[in-house]
Structure formats: C-alpha cells, structure tokens
C-alpha cells in the first residue's frame, strides 16, 4: 500500500504506545499474574524433561532407576523440584481462573483482583502442603 511505502516525516515521529512491561507502566497485580502464567507455563514445559527422564529410567531397569533417584534427590534438584511444584500449582490455579474467564465469568475488576490474590495464596499453600508430605 502506498501509505506504507512512503511514510511522511510526521507519521514516523508519531508516538507509539509503550510496551506494558518496562518503566512506563506501574506493574499491576493483573499484568504480573498474566505474565507469570506464561513464565510458569514455559518453566513447566522445561520441567517435562524430568518427568520423561524419570519414566525412561524406570523403563530402562532397576540400576537406571536407582541412579535417577540419586540424581533427583540432590539438593539443587530438590530446589528445582520445589520451584516446579509452585509453578505447577500456580499454573493449575490460574488456569482454572482463565477457564472461568473463557466461560464468561469473573470479569468485574474487584473479582479479577480477588481471584488473582486467591490464586497466589492457593499456589503457595498447596506447594507447602505437598512438600510437607515429602519426607
């Protein structure tokens, strides 16, 4: 289109809406929770490596399984598994929140904030609950 090929000087200087993440906007609970949903999703996709490794080790035999148990029980892996547990519960709870939105419920601003806080609290409580059962 002609207007795209020859932009005049004025249209080039036109201010653009700044990206929501950066120094221009104050972070809000809503936007922070939204990007966290994506980040935890990506982290969990990476975490599938552990699930696949665990299953493959069991399939390979008792020695491979013992080795996997050893690898997964070192403190660094423990920390990663703890963080993955939180990522899982966050993505799980916030996913339910998203499903309610998809169904058309919970769009009122006070509700959005309330459900957001509930998701954060639930994800933390559930993570500690699970790790209390890991002994």
């Amino acid at each position, binding site marked *: 289109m002609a207007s795209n090929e020859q932009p005049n000087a004025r249209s080039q200087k036109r201010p653009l809406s700044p990206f929501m993440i950066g120094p221009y906007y104050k972070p809000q609970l809503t936007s922070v929770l939204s990007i966290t949903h994506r980040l935890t999703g990506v982290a969990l996709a990476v975490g599938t490596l552990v699930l696949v490794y665990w299953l493959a080790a069991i399939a390979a035999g008792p020695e491979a399984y013992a080795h996997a148990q050893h690898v997964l029980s070192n403190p660094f892996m423990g920390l990663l598994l703890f963080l993955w547990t939180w990522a899982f519960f966050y993505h799980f709870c916030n996913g339910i929140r998203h499903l309610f939105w998809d169904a058309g419920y919970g769009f009122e601003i006070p509700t959005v904030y309330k459900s957001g806080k509930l998701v954060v609290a639930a994800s933390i409580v559930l993570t500690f609950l699970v790790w209390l*059962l890991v002994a």
Partner: protein
Amino acid sequence: MSLRSPLGRVRGLGSAKEGVQYWWAQRVTALALLPLVLWFMVSLLSLQHAEYAAVVDWIGRPFNSALLILLLISLFYHAILGLQVVIEDYVHTEAVKMSALIIMRFVLILLAVIAIISVVRIAFKAVLLSTGAGD
C-alpha cells in the same frame, strides 16, 4: 491492482476461518489435565518411598498406564500449543520464528514419544515381574 474489497479479503482470509480449533484444544487439554495431574501428583507422593518393583507394578496396572498415557498426550499437546503462542508473540523475525516453532515441536514430540514408549515398556515389565520371569 486487486478488485477485491478489503471486506472481501478479510472474509476470505480472516483468522476466524480457522485457528479456533487450537484455542479450543488448549482449553480442552487444560480441562483434561486438571484431574489427571492431581491424580499423578497424589500417586507420586504415595510412591516416593516405593521399591523399584512396586513403582513398575503401579505404572503397569492397566488403569494407571492408560491414565498416564492420556496425561502425557494432553500435557505435551497443551505445552506445544502454549509454547507456540509464546514464540509467536515474542519472536518477530520470520525465519527465527519459523525455526523456533519447528524445533520446539520436534523436541516436544520426541519427549512425548519417549515418555509414552517408556510407559508401555514398564507395563510389559510389570507383566514379566508378576509372572516371575522379569529382571
């Protein structure tokens, strides 16, 4: 010069023509994953101190193998759809975006197949162990 009106172009090529199935698939896999991952997490907690043979036996039970394979299919399909949206949103160089999308799919499908084959192998192993012919 095209004689097609902008409205005609939109009607013919607009995103509403296709693509909605992926939006739906993301939600339907999410719904399937809600009970599946909870079941898996509770099972993992109950298996944490189990011997190798007990883990093999548990995964090898038909109901458990079936649910595990369903979990793996839903999980990896959900992950592929999610990562695809993330890549499409943040990678704007066409060649890089295309490569990232293809590599991501290859890797996740490879992981899914390894995991499913492992479950099937474990199920066969469980039969051998229960008849006393296994390792």
